[in-house]
């Protein structure tokens, strides 16, 4: 509700006299206290409260706005330590965007305070701004530690509190605070024994006291009780310093905090120090000052040493490792325990013994659901299982303190389990954990002979599922027969309890059920026989699973004993991987879905009511058979819906966020430059395409699925961004808009690129597929790469029918299946295209 014109001037015009009187009265009261030598904590708190009353009155008189506002006291005002001439630090919070009404309300709050001559240090924020830390403004962040609500909407204030108070912010503020303390000490030559000390900034003065309290508040509040100095002595020191400061403000009539020789005499008199001569009284005053200042510095020094680095809710990093700040709270909150282990991975340190003992003592009281009560906890579990240095050590600690078996009950069944055979050298539980260590070793600095496997790991979309599969792959060994079948059964019991998605369940089940398959084929079958490779490729279906199974086999074989994974075996495994990968990625264009193919029966039988069987059959016909392995039934039905009633120049689109990435599905009808136009539009919005598949059916229907990263958070931050992107895709595909025009703004980043890290590879292959020339491209991953590659192909008259897009670390690996005039390229055409591609990839400018 906005205030009618003119009335908003009311508070400005009518109330200064009232406020002025109120302020004068409050100041008179404080002056009296100061002159009696009592201008310390209690007096300043009373003065702050008087200011609160004024602020509330002003807020009430200010025009209302539709969106909530909160006025928050921060800094010294937040601590209720306002001196006579202190600045008034205020934060004015708005629930949403600042419009004209909000500007008017803001003026109506601030002007009356200015009019009465107060010095206001005000900050204005929209609540969403607290989602990002203002790292360039450490003083403001510190002032927020003392925030308290004064007027306005309490709910909005609570939102601010929860946005501000989390481990990441706390750790940053403590870091910045420590840097500022060092800087301030350096300014004062690191000594508190100043003859004319600054009672606010000098070592041992008020700023140190505040710093010590901030550190405790941000790391471990119990430090205040446990410090080297008794809390009553600290309070006494604070009261003394404030009483002195009050006198300085009163005498100098301004915000002056230096205790000069002249002011020392006045302060000694006001505070009633005895002595026949001023010098005697001053010496007694300063002796007290230094005594209190020493207490303050000792307290701060201890606090800085003892304070843990905030590492999560109720977690801090100390020299012993990650510990719980409040042990009693931790004992009844098992849902916070995993975060302790995650923090150790994030901070590269162990879990403190005190935390491990607590978990050892209480783990048995809890069930799986207690550890992962909410979807956020279950997501955190999967994040924790991402292969990273230290994961094996953490899992071993969890196992040692009995936690792993409580979190994963199937794992309990193989604790200390001994299975005698000729190969295994460790108990089943340790073998299992060693598989994870072997995987983890591929993450950072793998040995030269493992680099090729390490690159597979970098390419995995969900490597945590591989770790989960390894963790459960041998749990069936508590029985003596068919352990992989029993492992699958036991793993299934876990899936629901940790909230695994259907797709993830299928992957984990596949890996556990087939964890011996690849070693059997690689080491015991004739892998030079194409039929053996074809059958193995049929088993794994898609590259993602092949990579996972290959890594699982490597990690599993290596964990049997130190001698099991010989270079000889590693070579056999790699060769099977390469042969199968080539089979999956190069030949699939020749295998098309036929009408009435038996594999389609389940898909047709379970069709949703809005789709007819004929719709589904028509859609599937002529797509590569691989399509059925890539997508689950729900995704296929969605694609069928998108393909209904599609006409030339139309695009039907669907997009959703999947983890950190977005997934865009495009259905349209084939035409020249289509693929480069679509990928160009994504690049023009700053989207980095990570993975994807582009397929064309024999009847010209195009289905492209892109996964891309939105580093600039365009889709997240802009309302209507998705619709805007869809509209541009429509316009570009239909020819109403040019993608080249759109990309002009990004030309600098597209064409004036950073130096190449790897020399691009272009490889043309006319033998692997009966129908297509296959172009493999490996190049630095960068914005607009797919656009430039596919544009060159179209410019050379080629039709892009199938594309596989992969990103491995910083390398893009793209496989194009192309034709020209409906046939494979001749060797001259291949040479020309390859040279053109190489030129563009090596930085040659391609006139659009």
């Amino acid at each position, binding site marked *: 509700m906005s205030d009618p014109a003119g009335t908003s001037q009311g508070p400005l015009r009518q109330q200064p006299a009232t406020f002025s009187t109120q302020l004068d009265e409050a100041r008179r009261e404080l002056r009296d206290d100061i002159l009696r030598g009592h201008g310390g904590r209690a007096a300043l708190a009373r003065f702050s409260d008087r200011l609160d009353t004024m602020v509330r009155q002003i807020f009430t008189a200010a025009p209302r706005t539709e969106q909530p506002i909160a006025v928050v006291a921060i800094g010294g005002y937040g601590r209720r330590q306002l001196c006579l001439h202190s600045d008034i630090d205020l934060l004015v919070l708005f629930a949403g965007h600042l419009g004209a009404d909000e500007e008017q309300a803001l003026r109506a709050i601030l002007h009356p305070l200015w009019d009465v001559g107060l010095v206001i240090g005000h900050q204005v924020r929209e609540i969403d701004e607290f989602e990002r830390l203002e790292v360039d403004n450490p003083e403001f962040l510190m002032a927020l530690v003392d925030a308290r609500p004064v007027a306005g909407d309490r709910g909005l204030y609570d939102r601010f509190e929860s946005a501000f108070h989390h481990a990441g912010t706390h750790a940053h503020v403590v870091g910045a605070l420590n840097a500022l303390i060092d800087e301030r000490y350096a300014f004062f030559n690191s000594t508190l024994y100043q003859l004319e000390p600054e009672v606010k900034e000098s070592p041992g003065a008020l700023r140190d006291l505040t710093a010590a309290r901030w550190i405790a508040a941000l790391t471990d509040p119990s430090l205040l009780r446990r410090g080297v100095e008794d809390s009553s002595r600290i309070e006494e020191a604070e009261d003394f310093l404030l009483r002195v400061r009050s006198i300085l403000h009163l005498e100098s009539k301004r915000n002056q905090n230096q205790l000069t020789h002249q002011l020392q005499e006045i302060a000694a008199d006001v505070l009633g120090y005895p002595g026949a001569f001023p010098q005697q009284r001053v010496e007694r005053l300063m002796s007290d000052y230094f005594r209190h200042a020493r207490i303050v510095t000792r307290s701060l020094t201890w606090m800085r040493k003892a304070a843990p680095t905030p590492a999560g809710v109720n977690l801090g990093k100390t020299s012993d490792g990650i510990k719980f700040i409040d042990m009693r709270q931790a004992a009844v909150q098992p849902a916070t325990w995993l975060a302790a282990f995650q923090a150790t991975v994030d901070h590269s340190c162990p879990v403190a013994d005190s935390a491990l003992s607590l978990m050892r003592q209480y783990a048995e009281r809890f069930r799986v659901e207690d550890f992962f009560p909410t979807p956020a906890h279950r997501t955190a579990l999967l994040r924790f299982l991402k292969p990273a240095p230290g994961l094996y050590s953490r899992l071993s600690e969890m196992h040692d303190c009995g936690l792993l078996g409580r979190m994963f009950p199937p794992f309990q069944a193989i604790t200390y389990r001994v299975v005698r055979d000729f190969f295994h050298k460790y108990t089943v539980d340790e073998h299992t954990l060693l598989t994870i260590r072997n995987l983890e070793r591929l993450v950072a600095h793998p040995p030269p002979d493992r680099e090729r496997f390490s690159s597979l790991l970098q390419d995995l979309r969900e490597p945590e599922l591989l770790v989960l599969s390894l963790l459960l792959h041998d749990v069936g060994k508590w029985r003596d027969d068919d352990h992989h079948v029993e492992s699958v059964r036991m793993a299934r019991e876990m899936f629901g309890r940790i909230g695994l998605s259907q797709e993830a369940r299928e992957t984990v089940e596949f890996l556990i059920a087939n964890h011996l398959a690849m070693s059997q084929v690689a080491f015991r*079958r004739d892998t030079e026989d194409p039929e053996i490779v074809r059958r193995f490729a049929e088993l794994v279906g898609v590259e993602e699973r092949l990579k996972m199974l290959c890594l699982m086999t490597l990690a599993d074989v290596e964990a049997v004993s130190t001698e099991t994974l010989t270079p000889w075996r590693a*070579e056999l495994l790699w060769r099977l991987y*390469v*042969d199968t*990968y*080539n089979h999956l990625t190069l030949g699939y264009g020749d295998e098309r879905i036929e009408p009435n193919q038996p594999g389609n029966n389940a898909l047709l039988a379970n069709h949703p009511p809005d789709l007819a069987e004929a719709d589904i059959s028509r859609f599937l016909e002529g797509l590569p058979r691989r399509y059925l392995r890539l997508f689950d039934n729900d995704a296929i039905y969605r694609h069928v819906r998108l393909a209904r009633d599609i006409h030339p120049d139309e695009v039907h689109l669907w997009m959703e966020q999947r983890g950190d990435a977005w997934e865009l599905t495009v259905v349209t009808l084939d035409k020249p430059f289509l693929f480069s136009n679509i990928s160009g539009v994504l690049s023009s919005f700053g989207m980095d395409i990570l993975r994807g598949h582009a397929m064309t059916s024999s009847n010209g229907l195009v289905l492209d699925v892109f996964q891309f990263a939105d580093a600039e958070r365009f889709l997240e931050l802009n309302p209507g961004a998705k619709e805007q992107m869809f509209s541009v895709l429509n316009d570009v595909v239909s020819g109403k808009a040019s993608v080249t025009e759109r990309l002009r703004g990004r030309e600098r980043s597209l064409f004036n690129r950073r130096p190449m890290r790897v020399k691009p*590879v272009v490889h043309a292959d006319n033998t692997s597929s009966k129908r297509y020339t296959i172009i493999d491209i*490996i190049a630095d991953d960068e914005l607009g790469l797919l656009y430039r590659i596919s544009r060159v192909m179209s410019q050379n008259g080629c039709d892009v029918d199938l594309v596989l897009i992969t990103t491995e670390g910083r390398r893009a690996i793209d496989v194009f299946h192309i034709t020209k005039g409906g046939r494979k390229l001749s060797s001259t055409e291949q040479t020309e295209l390859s040279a053109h591609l190489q030129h563009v990839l090596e930085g040659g400018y391609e006139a659009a």
Partner: protein
Amino acid sequence: MKLLKSIVRPNKVDEVKDALTKIGISGMTVTEVRGHGKQKGHTAIYRGKEYNVSLLPKMQIEVVVSDSIADDAIKAIIESARTGEIGDGRVFVLPVGETYKIRTGEKDSV
């Protein structure tokens, strides 16, 4: 006595072992080896890049047999390890002068 040193495809080891067992030969040494003969490796392509697989993984099986059954043993190895394709391997036959049991120091009388 003869030392039969056979280089075979990795997936053929079990078949060779079974064939030798059938004619009464049970002691053998099996080693993972890499090498090439006429097969000379081949060129594989992974992600557009060629790489040369010059040393192929093979298994080496060594058995010491008496002269009287050497021919049968050689035949058993060849029949069980053969696929008919290039890369099936070789059998080397070496004369053996004497053999001793390490545990007892006793000279074998084969």
